[in-house]
Structures are given as C-alpha cells and as structure tokens.
C-alpha cells in the first residue's frame, strides 16, 4: 500500500475518521464546552496543540519504550503537556481560561489523545505522527467550533441549544448529517463507476 498523501491524510482526519464524528472520542469536553463558538475554538486549539506534541514525543521515544510501561508513559507525557498548556492559557489568555475553567486540565482525560498515541504515534515515524496529530486535532477542533457556532446561533431563538441537552441534539444532528452525506455519495458512485469503497480501508492502524 502506498503512503497516503497529505491531502488524503487531511480528508481522513477531518472527515472519514474524525475523532468526534466517527470515532466518538473526547465527547466529555465536546459536549460540555461547546456552548459558544469561542469556547469551542479555545478548547479546540488547546487539544490540537497537546495532540501534536504528544504524538511527536510518543513517536520520538517509541524505540525505548517497552510495551508493558507504555501506558504510564503516555499518561506522563500527556499530563505534563496539558499542565503546560494550562499554564500558557492562564498566562496569555486569562479570559478564555476563566470561561473554559476546569476543562483545560481535563484535556488529560480526552481519550482521543491517548488513542492516537496508542494507535498511531507508537507505530509510526515522528514526521508522520506529527501530521497525524495535526489532522486529527484539526478535525476535532473544527467539530468543536462548528457545534459551538451552531448552538450559539440557534440559542437566539431556542434557548435549549445552549443547555446541556442541546449539546447531545447538536452532535446527533452533526453525525446524522455526515452519515447521510456519505450515503448519498456512495449511491452516486455506485450509479456511475464500477464501485470500489475507496476510503474504507485506507488508513492502517
């Protein structure tokens, strides 16, 4: 199998294997902070940067890490990076830090990050792992922003959207929309060319 191009990698992270929409990882922050666009943006950027660096570090140290101790090491790396991110937010974005509150330290528990370390970064070279962090993190961040923007807009007419149940409805709508788009494309492809499920087996893990 030839290595996927950068564009294909982006398509994978943003669409076909989007951490939030498809893998359904990291739902706790996704549902909790997306009451406004700016909160989604803030947490998205924080998660993205942690994911890029943690993927890089896990990949860089993968030679020396035996499989029995890999989980404590991931936890150690991710927890340190999140602490640094929290300090940086407190120092340079104090208002955003106050509105995100405890959800910045809680990035530690975002399973999307440890999942990418385990599934991808521990088995792939450093450059490729960083790209993985970028595409997956961007996919997650864009979803946070989209949901945040949607809820903020809808809340002007329908207050429920910013309340916790609104988060579940919005995410459900987003997943339904994605699945219906995928299905329509699939049908169109079936009608034109002899079909081959091009993206289904594309990403390795």
């Amino acid at each position, binding site marked *: 199998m030839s290595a996927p191009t950068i564009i294909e990698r982006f398509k994978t992270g943003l669409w076909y294997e989007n951490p939030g929409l498809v893998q359904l990882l990291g739902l706790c922050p996704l549902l*909790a902070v997306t009451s406004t666009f700016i909160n989604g943006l803030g947490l998205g950027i924080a998660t993205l940067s942690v994911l890029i660096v943690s993927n890089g570090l896990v990949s860089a*140290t993968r030679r*020396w*890490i*035996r499989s*029995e*101790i890999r989980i*404590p*090491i991931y936890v*150690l*790396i991710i*927890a*340190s*990076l999140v*602490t*640094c991110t929290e*300090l*940086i937010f*407190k*120092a*340079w974005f*104090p208002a955003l830090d*106050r509105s995100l*509150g*405890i*959800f910045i330290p809680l990035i530690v528990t975002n399973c999307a990050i440890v999942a990418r370390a385990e599934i991808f970064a521990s088995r792939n070279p450093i450059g490729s792992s960083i790209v993985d962090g970028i595409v997956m993190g961007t996919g997650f961040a864009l979803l946070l922003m989209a949901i945040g923007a949607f809820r903020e807009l809808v809340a002007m007419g329908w207050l429920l959207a910013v309340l*916790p149940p609104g988060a579940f409805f919005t995410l459900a709508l987003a997943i339904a929309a994605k699945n219906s788009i995928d299905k329509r494309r699939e049908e169109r492809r079936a009608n034109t060319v002899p079909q081959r499920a091009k993206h289904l087996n594309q990403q390795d893990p």
Partner: protein
Amino acid sequence: MRSGITLAAIAAVCTALVAFTYQLTDERIAANDRAWLEQSLQPALSGLFFDSGVSESVLTIPAPHELPGSEDAIIYRVYSGVSPVAALFVVSARDGYAGAIKMLVGIDINGEITGVHVLAHRETPGLGDRIESSKTDWGKQFDGRSLGDPGTSGWKIKRDGGDFDQLSGASVTPRAVVKAVRETLEYFDANAVTIFAAATDADNEVTE
C-alpha cells in the same frame, strides 16, 4: 529494571518541561490574577461612595490567621476622605468540593456585606460552579446581610436549617461559601478597629 530507568528518565524530562513552563509563565499569571482581582473590587463595593484608590490601601495578614483559608489573607481598605468606608477581604473557603474556593468578601463599616464575588475555584461544572457571579445570581443573596441578619443560627444553607439558598445538586459548595463569609464577618466584627488603624503594606515597607 530497564523499564524503571526509562520511566524515571521520561518522568524527569516531563517534570523539567513543566518546571520550565512554570518559570516562564509564573509572573504573567500572577499579574493576570492581580488584574482580575482589581477588576472585581468595584462590583463588590456595590455603589458605596469612596474616593481612595482601592488597591493602594492593601493590608496583608500573614498566615496563620483567623480568617478562612491557609494562605496569607489580603484586605483592601476603602476610605472616603479619612473615614473608613468598607473593607474587602480576599479569603479562601477550604471545605469546597474540590480544593479551595478563592473569593472576595466586601464588608462596609457597619458590618453589612457589600458583595461576595468568587475569584477562583475548581468546583464541578454545571453544579458547584453556579456560585460564580457570571453564571447565576446566587452570590447576590449575601448583599446587605450582616452577623445580626440572620442571627448566628441562620448563617447556614436552608438544608441545614439556615437562611441561605443552596444550589440544587450541590450543597457542599454553597455550605463552604456561607461558612467562609460568616467567618469573615466574625473576623471583621472582632478586628475592625485594628484593620483600619493598621499601617498599609506600602507604609510598612517605607519604615522598615
């Protein structure tokens, strides 16, 4: 054995990384906290007349002291001309659900509360965090209260037989805040004269 060494080495690197970031951000964070505090001072005074620069009259009470919290307590004194108007206490309630709840308690010269404002906390989002003045008006119920209103037995949340609203789903947090406010009032009641008579931190630095 080798695993242990690897783990220790990576732990050391990670600790160094955090320590370095802490060094880098420490000053800015302290400055931000100060700015946030000063920004919160005005609303905690709820329209009292005063003409002194609030942050110029700082008094630090070194720990241990009888105010809530284990850190040094900070008191901002507010004057109109030379007569004292109010004092603002920065204290921490320590028996919250998750760590200290840092808050600002304003008390005027008659012992009435001018405002309670939560500065920092780690309470559960959606439950305990409703004590924040940006989220609900829960903190407003303290305005105008004093040690006599309600009396000693009333300085509790309703669930414990007192006068103050709790928050549904979170009684630990309000209970801690009410207790800390009461303790601050008691301290003010016992020490008001000393507080206003004491020299400011700035004066102390000059004389020392």
